[in-house]
């Protein structure tokens, strides 16, 4: 047995609180501290804590390239109450990986509780162009190949191989927009039929604009703890049963872009197949990627996929992955689901994938 599942017998992790801001097309003049503070306050209030002094560890996920402000993540620490000094860490990734680091910290016995947050202000830059700079710096980044174009090539491969149809892609979007009508934080919601979506003009072919997640500003935060600590707090919680992440080659040309072997491996290590999956929240920034992920995770008819609308309804870069875990947590604590899968991604064409299994306590 590999990954963190094997260690789970030692210290079970409880997800105790989660909150996400609205997904806004632009947060205007709001800076990183002003974006983060309300989310941290919200999760602290859910547990009844004062500030970051009341947890053992804090870890955040963000990327300064998004808003073009150097060391914005350091300024974000102003939202925590770090006097006297706290134990704090940061990943230049989605906060789902900050969750992973926090889980390690707790499982190793270095902490009993952790605050995790991710924030994104993508609107100040041209996001697809900014993300082109995460590519190989010698041969690809200088060509400014943007993330939408790469995803479009991936969709073309899928269509040409007969693995999906354009109607399948539109069906993903139609369901996302409809589900988002029940999500007060969503940016794009509505009742749109597959037929109506297929009438839309191509954007970066074969992608239509609605096949791509929107650019959004916002933040999300979560509190996790040992089960003992969660019991002591006396708040409802869910169990993070397994979590694992795997990455594929930096060289896009060596990958099978119509599949996601890294997701499949992470799912095996996280124990996805150990029980029925009621709900899945998948970080699929493009409609066809949701289909790739559902297949890699082996999801069937019994699983509700992206009941929040997913990131096609609002995509907080560096927070959306954490929010997927939070969405599953909320549905389990509300009794809507017993067992769920959350997924986070990073890099072009689903290069790096994290899978978490969340269960009712």
């Amino acid at each position, binding site marked *: 047995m590999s990954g963190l599942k094997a260690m789970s017998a030692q210290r079970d992790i409880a997800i105790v609180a989660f909150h996400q801001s609205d997904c806004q097309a632009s947060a205007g*003049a*709001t*800076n990183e*501290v002003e974006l983060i503070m309300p989310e941290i306050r919200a999760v602290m209030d859910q547990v009844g804590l004062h*500030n970051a002094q009341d947890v053992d560890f804090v870890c955040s996920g963000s990327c300064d*390239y998004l808003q*073009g402000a150097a060391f914005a993540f350091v300024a974000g*620490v*102003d939202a925590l109450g770090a006097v006297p000094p706290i134990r704090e860490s940061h990943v230049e990734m989605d906060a789902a990986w900050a969750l992973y680091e926090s889980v390690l910290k707790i499982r190793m016995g270095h902490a009993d509780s952790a605050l995790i947050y991710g924030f994104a202000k993508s609107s*100040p830059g041209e996001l697809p162009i900014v993300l082109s700079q995460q590519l190989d710096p010698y041969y690809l980044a200088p060509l400014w190949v943007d993330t939408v174009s790469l995803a479009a090539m991936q969709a073309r491969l899928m269509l040409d191989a007969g693995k999906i149809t354009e109607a399948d892609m539109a069906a993903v979007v139609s369901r996302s927009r409809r589900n988002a009508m029940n999500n007060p934080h969503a940016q794009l919601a509505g009742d749109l039929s597959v037929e109506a979506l297929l009438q839309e003009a191509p954007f970066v072919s074969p992608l239509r604009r609605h096949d791509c997640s929107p650019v959004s500003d916002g933040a999300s935060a979560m509190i996790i703890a040992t089960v003992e600590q969660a019991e002591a707090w006396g708040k409802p919680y869910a169990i993070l049963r397994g979590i694992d992440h795997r990455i594929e080659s930096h060289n896009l040309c060596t990958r099978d872009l119509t599949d996601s072997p890294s997701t499949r491996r992470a799912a095996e290590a996280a124990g996805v197949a150990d029980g029925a999956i009621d709900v899945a929240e998948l970080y699929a920034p493009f409609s066809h990627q949701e289909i790739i992920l559902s297949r890699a995770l082996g999801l069937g008819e019994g699983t509700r996929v992206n009941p929040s609308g997913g990131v096609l309804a609002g995509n907080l870069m560096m927070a959306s992955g954490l929010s997927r875990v939070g969405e599953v947590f909320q549905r389990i604590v509300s009794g809507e689901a017993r067992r769920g899968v959350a997924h986070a991604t990073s890099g072009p064409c689903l290069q790096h994938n994290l899978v978490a299994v969340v269960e009712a306590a």
Partner: protein
Amino acid sequence: MSEAREPVTGIEAPVYLQYQFTAGRAPSRFLSALKQGRLTGQRCPGCSQVYIPPRGACPACGIATEEEVTLSNKATVQSFTIVYIPIPGNPIKPPYIVANLVPDGANISFIHLLSECVNEEVHIGQRVQAVWKPEAEWDYKMDNIIYYKPLDEPDVPVELIGKLGVDGREVQP
């Protein structure tokens, strides 16, 4: 063949990214007041500390600083250094003074320049006053104040630096 053996020691790959910058809601309020010739701080509703320049949160408490406080043009030297090297692109000729200053009404220092002074006589606790540019030149920038200059007032005891109200008197707890 010999050409292929030449080591490639670099490639040119310039990066241009354009951003629509915004200062933040709280810093915008500070900069707007600065453009009108006014130094402002923001008070934390938790610990009552007044911060300048405000970023929107009290880093000690982790809560929003909403209350605006107009600060005095008078300040106290909290620390300083005499710099013997030039600032690139700055007309100030060395040696000159960079100081941590606490304006009356604030609890946290900020950094600015001292001039019109005898460098060797500058000391901690010394009283100084802002020298503003002509009003026509005011903008959203800290160098609306060209520098601070000494003030003929008694020194502030070290334990009271950062504890003066906007009237220059000790704030009674």
